[in-house]
Structure formats: C-alpha cells, structure tokens
C-alpha cells in the first residue's frame, strides 16, 4: 500500500501539470458550453418549472404554490391549448414534408455541373439571411384578402377573393409557404454538402452497370444521405414545433392566431398567456408541456425515418 502511494506524492510540479493537462484540460475546454448552458439553459428551465407550479400573475404582487393546477387547466379545461398542439403538428406536417423533399431535389440539381454554380448556391441560401419579421410582413401582404398577390392572381381566372385567414387548412398553407421559402435552402445546402462527399466511383460503377439517373438517386444518394436526413428531420421537428413568428405575423402580429385560433400555435398560446394575460404560471406550464411534446415528436420522427431507410 505505502509503496504504491509514495511515488505519487513525490510527483514534481511538472508531472502534475502534465497529468492535469492530459486528464483535466478536455473538461476545461468543454466547460464554457456547460457553464453557459447552466446559466441560460438549465437555470431558466428549473425556474420555469418552479414558476409553472405557482399562481403568478403580473396583476398582483403576491404569488402562491398551487401544484399541478396550471397543467390540468391547460390539458383539460383550456380548449385552445389542445387545438394549438393540433395546429402546430398540422403546420409542421404540411410545411416540413414538402420542404425536405424539394430541398433534396434542389440539392441533387445543384450537385450537377451547372453554369454559375456558385450563384445558384448563393441564391438558394439567400432567404435564410432575411429577417423573419420582414418575411412575415411581406407574406402577410402576399396572402392578403383584398390587396394580396395570391388573390390578385386567382382573380385573373375569375376566382373570388379568398380569406386565407379564416380557414384552418388555408391559413396553414399560407404559413407553410413562409416557412418553406425561408428554410428550404438551408436544408438543400446541408444535403448538397453531404452529397459532395459521396464517393464518385459509386456512381461510375452504377453507370457502367446501366443504372439510370433516378436509380442512382434512390439506390446510392438517398441511402448515403441517411444520417444527414435524420439530422434535418430532427432539426425541422424542433423548429416546426416552436413555430411562432410566421403565424404571428400572418395574423397581423396578434397572438390569437385567427378569429378562433385557426392558426394559433402552442408557442403563440404560451406568449399570449404571458403578454395578454400576464399569467406567468400558466405560461411556464405551457412551456414545459411544449418541451415534452417536442421531445416526443422529435423522437417519433427519428424512429420513423430510421425505420423507413433501414430497409434499403
């Protein structure tokens, strides 16, 4: 015992620094992220959990502990909350599925030899750097009932002005157009980057064997992109479930999401409770339920995508 312990205690400062460098420095390097996460991620989450169990309104100075009352109000009494989850999921589905498919096709096209390749790639990315507020304002005008471009175009064929805001599906389509316009290029670029690392010789071999372009796409490109597709689905799920600015701007900055909440997302309900009603407790509870729902949706999507492509 003692003999094994002795050499350790006799370690020189140099040795100690060396040991620390090998064992400790990785932790130091990752520490900044975790410190920042603790302050801006973990602490707010725990505080929100605390707030979600309080009867806490800006309308009065005192607050009190009420257990899970806020959660049960949201889940069982407040209809708009349930509908908002339905709306969010609906918009996610009609926005994300076409978006990722189109992104894949665009990436495939950009991966071919094109004139002005760099320009096309830049253009695809351009929507991402525009302000989401600006996008919202412009699209709200495009989908306007009286002075909107879409209705103006349909009017050429004798279609009466459509109130895109009043129907559930019509408002979702309008909002999905905003989301897709903004994020399609982002996903296309990720796919493009992944496509460029697929070894050329796979395609050459396939071409020699007489595989057509579409066979190459489905049998080589898609399977090779699997990890990246999973990544984009995951990111889109999280983003889609937190959809907020687009529907808010579509509804002229109102948080009620249409006259009966046709396009009110869960994030909008959350912020509505905070801003319109000053109810910190309910808003926090809504935040935690949303957190769980996002986890479930992202997990489910992961399973589906993994299963779909696992067969290939």
């Amino acid at each position: 015992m003692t003999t094994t312990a002795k050499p350790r205690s006799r370690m020189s400062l140099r040795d100690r620094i060396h040991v620390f460098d090998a064992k400790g420095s990785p932790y130091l390097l990752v520490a900044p992220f975790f410190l920042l996460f603790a302050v801006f991620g973990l602490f707010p989450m725990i505080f929100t959990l605390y707030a979600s169990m309080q009867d806490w309104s800006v309308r009065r100075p005192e607050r009190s502990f009420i257990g899970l009352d806020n959660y049960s109000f949201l889940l069982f009494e407040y209809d708009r909350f349930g509908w908002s989850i339905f709306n969010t999921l609906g918009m996610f589905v009609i926005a994300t599925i076409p978006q990722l498919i189109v992104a894949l096709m665009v990436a495939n096209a950009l991966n071919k030899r094109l004139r002005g390749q760099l320009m096309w790639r830049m253009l695809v990315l351009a929507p991402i750097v525009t302000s989401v507020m600006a996008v919202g304002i412009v699209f709200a005008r495009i989908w306007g009932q009286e002075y909107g471009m879409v209705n103006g175009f349909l009017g050429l064929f004798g279609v009466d002005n459509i109130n895109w805001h009043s129907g559930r599906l019509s408002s979702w389509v309008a909002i999905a157009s905003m989301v897709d316009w903004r994020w399609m290029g982002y996903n296309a670029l990720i796919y493009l980057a992944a496509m460029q690392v697929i070894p050329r010789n796979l395609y050459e071999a396939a071409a020699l064997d007489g595989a057509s372009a579409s066979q190459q796409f489905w049998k080589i490109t898609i399977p090779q992109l699997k990890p990246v597709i999973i990544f984009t689905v995951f990111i889109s799920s999280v983003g889609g479930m937190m959809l907020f600015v687009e529907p808010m701007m579509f509804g002229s900055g109102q948080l009620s999401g249409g006259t009966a909440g046709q396009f009110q997302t869960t994030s909008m309900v959350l912020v509505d409770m905070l801003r319109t009603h000053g109810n910190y407790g309910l808003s926090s509870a809504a935040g935690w339920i949303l957190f769980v729902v996002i986890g479930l949706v992202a997990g489910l999507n992961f399973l589906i995508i993994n299963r779909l492509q696992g067969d290939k």
Partner: protein
Amino acid sequence: MRMFNRHRGKAALAAVAASALALSACSGDGDDQEAATNEDGKKVLTLRIFQDFGYEALVAEYNDMQDDVEVVMEGQGTNFDAEHRPAVETALEAGTSPGDVIGMDEQAMAQMMVRSDWWADLAEHGYDSRASEYPDWKWELGHTVDGGLAGFGTDVGGMGLCYRADLFEEAGLPTDRAELAAAWSDWDGFTDLAQQFVDSDVDADFVDSPTQLQNMILGQTAGQGDGQMYVDADGNLTLESAAVQNAVETILELNEIGAIGQWAAWSEEWTAAHAEGGFAVASCPSWMVGLVEDWAGEDNAGNWDFAAAPGVSGNWGGSWLLVPANTPYPEEAAELAAWLTAPEQQVKAFEAVGAFPSTLEGAAEASSLTNPYFNDAPVGEIIAGSVAEFPALEYAELHHPVKQAVEGVLNGLLDGTYSSDEVWDAIQTEAENAAALGGM
C-alpha cells in the same frame, strides 16, 4: 482511477451549480436602477411611449429649456398591446426600468393601478395641486388602488366618425358633415344610411370593422348608463350589460345587411384600406384622426371628412404618462410628465396628432381648432361636443383581455367562422377563458 474521475465530475457539477446560483443571485439585485447620465453630465430621462403621442417637437423644446436633463423618447410607432404594455409589465415585474416616464393607454389603467408597488407617488413631489386642472374622473383614474398619484392624463378619446366624402358622393349619399350628423344622430339613422350605401353597389364596405364599432358603442352606452361593460371589478362577466348587448346587437344588425367590412382592425390590410378606399366610414376617436391622415396619405387629402358620431357623446381611450417607482429621477420625471400634460402642450399635441386635451383649459382651447386634412372640419368642436358631459368610464382590471377575446369572435362573425346564431355562445366561451387566464 474511476474514483478520481467521479470526484472530478461532482466537483465540476458543484462549480457549475454554484456559478449558476451566483448569477441568479446577481440578477435579483437589480432593484436599484443605475442613474443614467450622458457625456455632458446631464441626467438622461427615457420617455417610453407607443404609437404616436405627437411629442417629437415638444421633447426637443423641453431639452432646449433644460440645463441638466436630456429627454430621450423611445417606442414611437410600437403597438400598444403587442409590444408596449407587455414590455413595460415584464420590466416592472422583473424589477428593471422600462423608462422614467411611461405612456399608458386608458383601457389598461385599471390593471396597472392594481400594482401600487410599481408606481411612484407624485403627490410626494407636490403635484396634488394639479387636480383642479382636470375633470374629476380623469384625475381619479391616475391613482393606484392605495391612493398614490401615479401620473397625469394626456388626452381623452372624444368621438367622431371619419368618412370618405368621395365614396358617399358616389353612393348618392349626403356629403355635408352637418347633414350627415343629423341623419345619423342615433344608431338607427346610421343603419338606414348603411342600407342606402349597400344598395348603391359602390365597390367598398360601408364601415371598416366590427371591433372598432364595438369599442365606440360600448363606451357610449356604458358612459350614458350604468358604466358596466364586459366584466366587473371582481372579475365576474357582465355580458348582459346594456353596453355589451347594444354593441353586439348593433353589429349583428349591420352585418345582416352587409354593411361591415372584413378589415381586422390594426391589420396591414386595414391600414392600407384607409388609402385604397376599402371602406367609407371609420370610427374616429380623437387619437385616430392623426393616424387616418398618416395612413391615407397626401393623395387622399380632401377625400376624408369628419362628422359627429351617432349618439354623439362618448369616450374611447385616451392616454396617460406614468412615473414608475424604480426611476432614479422621480423628481425630474414628474416634472417632465407634468410639463407634457400641461394645457399648452396638450394643445400642441392635438395639433400634431389630434389627441384631444384632457385638461379643462386645454380642451377649451383646442375646441376652436380645425383640421385642414379633413376639409377643414371643425374637429376640435365636434370632439369637444362629444365629451362635453364626460361620461366617466370605469375600466375593470380584466376589461382589456376580455374585450380582446370578444373582438376575436366579432372578427370571426365577419370571416364566417361563426354564424349570427353562434356569436353569443362564442362570446361567452372566449370571455370565460380570458377571465380564467387573468386568474380571477
């Protein structure tokens, strides 16, 4: 070796937890606001407003008069409900400063005055003496539930109707404001004119939106009657009140004949329609006059006119300048608020944006003023007439959120979400929800 690593892990976790705690502890100390000074050593006062108070020139004038104070105006053009009020509430709840003087819409005053702890008591600085400058009700509304004087009223929402004389002429309706005021001296007369306008097939709606009408009728009926609107001070819904019944039934009737447009108030299309001729009549409390001029633009000069409203007397809105308790310069902030709301400055704001003075002296002076944009309409006289008997409205703490919920239903009536038969049920449900969310 494993022991060693696990120790490290725990130590790291403890360090993280400790620093998180330390940081949160720091943020809890933010109650004492740091006093802001600029490079010349002047005290910097932030005046935080919303929409347009017409203060640009006044702030410049004030800064020229002061040796040791510089006023910075922020928030001009922001939407009250979507941006301004939530930002102010969040800042005050978190213990940080939203500004040294805060603009506040009258409809949110009740919910603000519940929080006595948020506001300074200007009586401590000797401003009790201003009581005689105001009508009693306007003065009283500026006090917190504990009786502190939180601020001063800027304007009152005297009522009128803005109308498109060009569209009226096209529809074969009278265009003279006195003639119109006589024709729609009550809401039945208004409905008759609406019917005539609809029958004329002019390509525009008669009146802009259901919610603007609702606000107008609500204020009128409540002011002339028992003062009861959607909800009482204890948070009980009062949907059977004369004001609510009158407002909703009038809207249902006008909608039946197709006289109301689908222009959701404060939407992009609504503001654009002021210039495009989307509708012929808009509810115009005094503070809307300046906005209509902005939105309709120079091209429409002379198209818009201004007449007395049906039912004439009434009151919708008006604003306040409040001084929060956590300002480092309560004395200077109070002085600024008092100066901006003095009769002379109120008249200048009226000339700039149409906000009608709430002080007795200011109102008397403004009532002789005309507005060139509206064919030189005697806007001052018409508005002064509408608030001559100042019906004092009591806004309950939950008034604002409940009203907003009802407005969603009224817009839904127009876009086909609800049929006329479903409106009352929907109002009941949405109003109950809003009351529940308000925690009362």
